[in-house]
């Protein structure tokens, strides 16, 4: 029993994890012959990606996801610190992640109801005879990203902060460190693993989302995810969609390698 019980899963991973990805790789390297409908080898999909139109989409995605990650870090780090110092930190943490248990689509939809033309905020503003376009722009998408992914930043940072050896912080104070210096030289470097997993967990879903940009961005803010979805569900150009997905995977791989490097560099304290 011991020896063979992982065997079915080996076949399963081949069928449902590796084969699908190989298929995407294969599609990305082929185009459909318009006469025969056969797939022929070609690099056209990758060449096509250098079209300024698509480059802009890539830049916009990385830019928005990057800004969202930075905002989440700035908002989330103090939050994680405050919660970790609370008396009932477990309960507060539970309350903090409670909204996450609500359907992701509903949470995004809620912002549509608030920011929309006849939405909550505009109704309030109309008392002062002001109307604002809040929905269907990059800022709305950014807000949706921060709202949905903020807990992903707070959780790992909180976990690291709670486990941190408090005597190190006390030692820094005893040796005459100011609170700010203690934070910069002791607390922050020690919490870096948490920060790095938080950054990964926010950036990855943000850069590949198509739901948030679809609902809150309207047609205005197209991201990589929207491109992929369009190619597969609307335009029916699977080859091009696959090429975009391959690039998206590479992008994330590069991002994770970079973060891994930073983590390594700081391992065991700062220099």
């Amino acid at each position, binding site marked *: *029993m011991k020896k063979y019980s992982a065997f079915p*899963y080996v076949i399963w991973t081949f069928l449902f994890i590796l084969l*699908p990805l190989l298929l995407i790789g294969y599609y990305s390297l082929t185009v459909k012959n318009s006469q025969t409908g056969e797939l022929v080898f070609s690099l056209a999909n990758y060449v096509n990606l250098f079209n300024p139109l698509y480059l802009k989409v890539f830049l916009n995605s990385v830019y928005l996801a990057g800004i969202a990650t930075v905002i989440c870090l700035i908002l989330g780090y*103090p939050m994680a610190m405050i919660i970790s110092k609370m008396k009932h930190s477990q309960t507060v943490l539970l309350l903090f992640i409670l909204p996450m*248990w609500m359907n992701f689509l*509903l949470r995004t939809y809620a912002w549509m109801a608030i920011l929309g033309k006849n939405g909550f905020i505009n109704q309030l503003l109309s008392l002062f005879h002001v109307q604002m376009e809040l929905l269907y722009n990059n800022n709305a998408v950014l807000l949706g990203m921060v709202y949905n992914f*903020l807990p992903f930043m707070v959780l790992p940072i909180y976990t690291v902060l709670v486990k941190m050896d408090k005597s190190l912080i006390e030692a820094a104070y005893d040796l005459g460190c100011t609170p700010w210096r203690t934070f910069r030289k002791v607390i922050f470097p020690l919490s870096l693993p948490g920060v790095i997993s938080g950054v990964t967990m926010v950036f990855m879903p943000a850069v590949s989302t198509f*739901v948030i940009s679809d609902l809150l961005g309207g047609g205005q803010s197209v991201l990589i995810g929207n491109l992929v979805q369009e190619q597969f569900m609307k335009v029916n150009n699977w080859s091009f969609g696959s090429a975009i997905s391959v690039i*998206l995977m590479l992008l994330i791989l590069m991002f994770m390698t970079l973060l891994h490097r930073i983590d390594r560099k700081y391992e065991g304290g700062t220099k």
Partner: protein
Amino acid sequence: MKKHLARLYTFLIFFFLYAPILVLIIFSFNSSKSTAAWSGFSLRWYSELFRDKSIMKALYYTLLCAVLSSGIATVFGTITAYGIHHMRRRPQKILLTINNIPLLNPDIVTGISLMALFSALAVLRFKLGFTTMLIAHIAFNVPYVILSVLPKLSQMPDDTINAAMDLGATPFYAFRKVVLPEIKPGIITGAIMAFTMSIDDFVISYFTAGVGVTNLSIQIYTMARRGIKPSINALSTLMFVAVLILLLLVNKYSDEKEQLMS
């Protein structure tokens, strides 16, 4: 001063997190269609929700898929974890790396790649529908179960199994009577994780469910794109209350257990 600042900050962040949900809940009781102007209390959207056949069908598919996929994934994942635990180091490392792919890949890539697979298998009369959605859910659930069971297996001393076998237990009996009780917490965590992942999933279902089948997330997506509909507010309120009750129950259960233990 510093303490007040921390309180204020906590309040603001919690306000940011809960305000949208509160707006949805409050306006689910609104008698008019508006999600901004209050025009009186009514349960109209709740009765409309339950009469909406497409929502009810989506709810049915969501629950069926969550129960089946988490159940199958839990059994499959636990057995696999047991096997992985006893593998030699190299193949173990390779399998665990592959096991990590669905966790690290963006949902959209997992979704389209499975869609591509199912379409390529269409020759074998494999059509997109409930079965393909179920397989996709199992595929992203098993890795979570494996990862939550494996640490429990490593914490367990190997001698206990050997002792059971020395005393004449068959391998299966030893697994059932010795291993299973030890790794039970990991299995339960894995099952709960799989269930919630499945209920909450949108992206992977969207690509693998095909035309006829929808789950709640897909339903909400199509409805939200067409514009605001107050029955979604009613639905979100009910779902939020359900989650709240579930969490309270789990909390109470674990509290009682802790008291029993101490």
